[in-house]
Structures are given as structure tokens and as C-alpha cells.
């Protein structure tokens, strides 16, 4: 188990819990999608699993080590995080921003991998040609790809992507899927939160379905993306139909009326 959370609770304002005794298990090499309606606790769950946010009770472990025992640098070598706030102050170039991904490895043996890791990350995220551009002059989609390259270059076994497909168009979303699959092929474990159920149905091996600050269901994608569980999580009837996309991948078409 590369990542495990045991009955984690996060308190909110007043009586309301932001996460209510949530447990998660993620195996090496899996792709887990975190889905659910707005306000269900997806971001909070991603926050505690990635060590960005503290739990009020319960525990989170990376490869059987409690993450509260890891300092900020060790944490940054164990997991990378693509957040939702991707603004960069000042006119740094794409090459500079991607190179920041290597910061946690400064002063270690891994520094000799810096150049390779950066080149590979830029290639997989399709930003090699933007190398000398300033990041604050790029379009939203390009900027997102640069940050994806940055977190890939960080070279962590565990990678968190918080709504990476928000503000990408159809083509961009497909390319992002391909990028994430290439990462998975070299053995990285991914956690991806998203509102796009069809997209994650073709990408994820497992789904964590959130509703009302609890987990409604978690397990292999096909067992969780069902009419019954989705309707329960969203509080509204959601019909699920599985079919195949152009490349033969199984994809769920989810509709609500």
C-alpha cells in the first residue's frame, strides 16, 4: 500500500465536519479518481492525502510511514501536487518554472538526474517548444501544462492532480489523459480529482466517490461508477451507460435529468 488513510476526520466551522471518518487505500501503480458533487469534500480529501492539510483525527501513511513524521522536504520527495492556484508572480520562463520541480532534490545524488527529468517532463507535458517563453504570457491551457511538467519533474512516486482538467478544452483534456497515462506507465501512482466523470472513467483504475463529506463508495472504476452509487452521491438520478471510445477504451456516459 503506497498510500493509506485511516478514519480521517477534519473539523470545519461549528458542528459541520469537512471530512467524516474517511478511509482510503491506494496501491502502487494505480490511478485513483476522486469524484463527487461540489462541496462533497474532494479538495479536503486531496489535501489531507497529500499532506497539504492536517487531520483532526485519524492518520495518513505513505508506504507505511505516518506523514506527520515527514518534514516538508521529505514530503516533497514522496509526493508532488498540482494545485488549483497556478498563478506565478514575476516573469519567470517556462524552463525556470519546470526546473523548480527539482528543488526538493537539491544537495542529493538525484541532482544528476535533473536535466533528464526536466527534459522528459517537458516532452510528456508538450511544453518543450515553450521553453524560453514567460509563463505569465501563456494561455491558461499552456500555463497548466507547464505546471504539470513541473510536478512531473519533481519525480515522486505519488502524484496528486487537483482538477487538472478544469479550463482545458476537449483536445487539451484528451492530451492530459495521455500525459497522465505515460506517467502511470513508468510506475507512478496517481490521484486525480475531477468533475468530468466520463474522462475519469476511461483513465482511472479505481474511483473514490465522495458525497456529503463521506465516502459513498471506493473500488475499481466499473464497480463505483454505477447509476445507484452516483445517484446516491449526487442526490439526484444519474444514468450511467458504458460504451467504447475510438481507441477501444471503456468509457462511461453519465447523464442527469
Amino acid at each position, binding site marked *: 500500500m503506497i498510500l493509506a488513510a485511516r478514519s480521517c476526520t477534519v473539523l470545519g466551522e461549528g458542528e459541520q465536519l469537512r471530512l467524516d471518518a474517511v478511509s482510503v487505500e491506494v496501491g502502487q501503480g494505480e490511478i485513483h479518481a476522486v469524484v463527487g458533487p461540489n462541496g462533497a469534500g474532494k479538495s479536503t480529501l486531496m489535501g489531507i492525502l*497529500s499532506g*497539504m492539510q492536517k487531520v483532526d483525527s485519524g492518520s495518513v501513511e505513505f508506504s507505511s510511514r505516518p506523514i506527520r513524521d515527514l518534514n*516538508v*522536504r521529505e*514530503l*516533497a*520527495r514522496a509526493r*508532488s*501536487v498540482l*494545485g488549483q*492556484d*497556478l*498563478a*506565478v*508572480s*514575476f*516573469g*519567470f*520562463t517556462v524552463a*525556470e518554472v519546470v526546473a*523548480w*520541480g527539482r*528543488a*526538493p532534490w*537539491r544537495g542529493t545524488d538525484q541532482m544528476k538526474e535533473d536535466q533528464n527529468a526536466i527534459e522528459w517532463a517537458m516532452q510528456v507535458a508538450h511544453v518543450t517548444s515553450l521553453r524560453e517563453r514567460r509563463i505569465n504570457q501563456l494561455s491558461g491551457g499552456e500555463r497548466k501544462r507547464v505546471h504539470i511538467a513541473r510536478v512531473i519533474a*519533481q519525480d515522486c512516486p505519488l502524484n496528486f492532480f487537483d482538477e487538472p482538467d478544469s479550463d482545458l478544452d476537449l483536445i487539451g483534456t484528451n492530451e492530459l489523459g495521455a500525459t497522465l497515462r505515460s506517467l502511470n506507465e513508468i510506475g507512478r501512482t496517481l490521484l486525480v480529482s475531477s468533475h468530468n466523470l466520463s474522462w475519469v472513467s476511461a483513465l482511472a483504475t479505481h474511483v473514490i466517490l465522495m458525497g456529503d463529506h463521506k465516502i459513498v463508495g471506493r473500488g475499481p472504476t466499473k464497480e463505483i461508477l454505477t447509476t445507484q452509487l452516483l445517484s446516491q452521491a449526487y442526490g439526484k438520478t444519474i444514468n450511467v451507460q458504458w460504451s467504447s471510445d475510438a481507441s477501444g477504451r471503456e468509457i462511461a456516459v453519465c447523464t442527469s435529468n
Partner: protein
Amino acid sequence: MTRIGKAWILGIALLLILIVLVTISLRFGAAGADSLVIWNIRLPRTVAAVLVGIGLASAGVLLQGSLRNPLADPALVGVSAGAALGAVLGAAVGLPFNSIWVTTVAVLTSSMAMAVVVWVSRSNGRIEVVTVLLAGIAVSAFGAALIAVIASMSDLAGVRSVTFWTTGSFALSNWAGVNSMWPAIAIGVVLAFYLAPSLDLMALGDEGAYASGVSVTRVRTLAILAAVLLTAAGVAVVGVIAFLGLVVPHAIRLVVGPAHRQLLVLSALGGAVVLLLADTIARLALSPVEIPIGSVMAIIGAPVFFVLLGRARNRQGGWA
């Protein structure tokens, strides 16, 4: 040309200009150029201008990087006023001006001023661009008022009038003054270089920097502390000089980009060049009358601030 190539060329050019300016500054003045005048008056004044220039420009870089605020300047965020108040307080309790003791008090009050500004400006884990400046105005007004009160209650401040503190002057910079400021400025510069790589990552915002392995609170606290040392040491001797910490780093960024290692070296050099040039102009333009150095800097700096203000506002979609 690459940014590194440009950085080398700019660095060498600034160094040459600095040497020329130092020569001019030592050679010309209201009095004749005998060795006593040069050694006891012009040389310490020149060294002070170089040190204060290094200090204020580096402090600007540190504040802008650690607060993610392109508009931060030691005088605009209240660091300088806090330091001036400390210097006056120190003198009022009997500590001699241009001594390391006054510098120490200035560092303490300046830290307190900065703590108030940062504390007021925090909102949801971010430090707001505009609130920092508004808090800086309030802290500066408070500091100036207390200085005026202390100055009117005693004549301990002597030749240093209220105007001296608000517009700045190198006229009272002697060797004692130089000796009182260089240790703090040296510590500040070393600390700044140690922090430079982390300051780059701070551009990602608190969450992004933390996710990339930066101890955000620690880096920000140390950066502000370094900015306080770099600013307060100079202010205790020469008073408040605004806009240098804003204009110089901005100009350097336009040429070599925002990466903090180059930015710090070149801003320190650039700060020394600009301030020494401004002081030479202040001294010689209407000789034997001196123009206040702070006025010379404000005439250059205020228009640049307006341009930056407009740009920062556009980027954030307006401040209602």
C-alpha cells in the same frame, strides 16, 4: 542572448560605473579636495551611500519576493519608518547617534512595525498586495508622528530634524555611521543569498511553494528579518529614502528576469550605483546648497511606482 549572459554583462557594466562614480564623488565637492576632506568627509559619505544603496535595493528584492508583491519597498511597507522611530527613541534615551546601539534599537522597532503590517495584511493564508501598502502608510504615519512628538519634547535629536528623517540625507554620515551599519548589512546580504533559491519558489504562492518542499513561514520570516536588517541599519544613519528598493529591482528584472540569485547581486550593485549617483547630484547640482537625497529618489521613483501600480491592478482585475 541568454539571461545569464546578460547578467554578466550588466554586472560588469554596473561595477565599472560604480568605480567611476566613487572617483567623481571623492574628487568633487563644495570644499577643496585636500586629503583630510576626502578621508574624513567624502570617503565615509561615499561608503555610506554605497552600503545604504546595497541595503535598500536588496531589501526591496526580499520584500517583493517573500510577499509576492511587486510594489513592496522598505519605505512603502513601513520598515523604514519603524527604523527611524527606533533611532530617534534610542537617541532620546541617551544613546549616541551613528552607534551600533542606535542601529540595534532601530532593528527592533523596525521588526515590530513589519510584524504589525504582515499580521494586518494576512487573509486566508495570503498576504494581500494592497493591504500591505495601506498598513505601511498607517505604520509610517504613526512612526512619523511619534518622531515629531519626541523631537519636540527634547533637543536630543540635535541636528537631526523631523525633515532629516522623512527625506533622508548623507550629510551626517561619518566613519562612526559606516561602522554602525555595515555589520547588519553584511548579515542581511548573506541571509538574502541563502534564501534566494527558496524565494524563486515562493512565486508559486504559499501552497505551491510548500508542496515543492519550501518551509514557507520560515523563509518568509527570515526574508523579512533580512530586509529589516538591511533597511534599519541605513535608516538609523541617513533617514528614510523611499523608492530605491522599488525602482532598482524592477529595472534589473526587465533585463535579466526575476531569478533571485542574479536579481540580488545586480540589484545590490544597481542600488549602490543609483544612490551614489543621486547623492552626487544632490550634493553638486545646486552646490553649495544640498538637495535632500530622498527628494531626488522620489522624483525618479514615484512615476515608476505609478506605472507598476497600474500594472499590478490590471493583473488582479482591479481593486474595488
